């Protein structure tokens, strides 16, 4: 039972942390809870369907379908998070300063919601399909301890959700003047970590070279399977034995989104000047 709880916890935790950050970052989006719930439900449905098609997906792309699928999902999530940080962040400020433009607010709200739905849905889809497969394996095995193992699964889910919710609640306590920067930085690091993971899958599928693998090895000091290792892996993309190419993806994502944020952040200032004039 304990083993099952740990495995399910690991999978759920990653998705829960992503949802916690994204939920906090979009706290001002109307109906954000409804959109997050929809993302979770769609993600779970997708995970079950995906689990059922694992053998079909595995056969695609000369047996590299799984890797390509995971990389694609991660890269799409990276783009969504980048979009959130670069466009929505600046629009949010603009809107706060210019509340008359209700039509635009609704339009941007819808865009932001579609980002929420996709990022949350993808996180649940990716981690959920593995959990579904794992629990399915247990449920169909003829071992006697099926019930206790499924109970372990339930405990794992509950523990993972609890950590994600704690992170969300903690983030909401950040004072308003720092809140915006804090959540942007978290989303930025989340995106960079996902890009590095995507690179990992592309290396595994032999599509891109690894460039020096591993670049460093900190598995003795901070193993990736330790609680702190898992937390850092999910939050900032920590990798105990990264390939050079993963670092390239990480840094390029980090720099690109940062530059995008800098560029769009200057625009509201210009608007303010015009208003003053």
């Amino acid at each position: 039972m304990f083993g099952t709880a740990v495995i399910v916890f690991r999978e759920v935790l990653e998705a829960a942390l992503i949802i916690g950050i994204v939920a906090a970052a979009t706290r001002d989006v109307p109906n954000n809870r409804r959109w997050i719930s929809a993302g979770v439900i769609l993600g779970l449905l997708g995970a079950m369907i995906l689990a059922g098609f694992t053998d079909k997906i595995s056969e695609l792309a000369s047996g590299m379908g799984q890797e390509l699928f995971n990389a694609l999902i991660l890269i799409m999530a990276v783009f969504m998070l980048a979009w959130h940080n670069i466009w929505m962040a600046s629009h949010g400020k603009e809107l706060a300063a210019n509340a008359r433009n209700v039509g635009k607010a609704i339009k941007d709200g819808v865009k932001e919601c579609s980002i929420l739905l996709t990022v949350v849905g993808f996180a649940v889809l990716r981690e959920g399909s593995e959990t579904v497969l794992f629990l399915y394996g247990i449920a169909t095995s003829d071992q006697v301890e099926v019930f206790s193992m499924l109970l372990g699964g339930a405990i794992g889910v509950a523990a993972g959700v609890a950590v994600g919710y704690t992170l969300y609640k903690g983030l909401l306590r950040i004072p308003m003047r720092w809140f915006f920067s804090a959540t942007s930085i978290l989303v930025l690091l989340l995106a960079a970590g996902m890009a590095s993971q995507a690179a990992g899958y592309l290396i595994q599928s032999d599509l891109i070279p690894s460039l020096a693998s591993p670049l460093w090895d900190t598995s003795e000091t901070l193993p990736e399977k330790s609680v702190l290792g898992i937390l850092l892996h999910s939050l900032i993309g920590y990798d105990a034995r990264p390939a050079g190419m993963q670092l390239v993806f990480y840094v390029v994502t980090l720099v690109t989104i940062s530059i995008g944020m800098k560029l769009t952040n200057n625009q509201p200032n210009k608007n303010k000047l015009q208003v003053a004039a």
Partner: protein
Amino acid sequence: MNKIIALILLLPSLAFANADEYTILIKNHRFEPAELTVPAGKKIKLIINNADSTPEEFESYELKREKVIPGNAKATIFIGPLTPGKYPFFGEFNEATAKGTIIVQ
């Protein structure tokens, strides 16, 4: 022109031609062989044949590989080139029994 096209089409097969092929069987949630010796500095093509009816996830922190293998199915995992040493791997869905090591010499 035709020669160039033929060469480009041959490229993937050349890449695969370099990889030595090894098969590991999964049966009753155990790897067979549990210890596999492969040469250092070469790309290796691992074929994991899951003879169990339940899915398994081949995972190795040391090799940086993670792949779900459906029940009664095969999966290909490329590893290496590796430096000599021991690289443990395990089946995440049945960690108690599914353990193995790749020894690179």
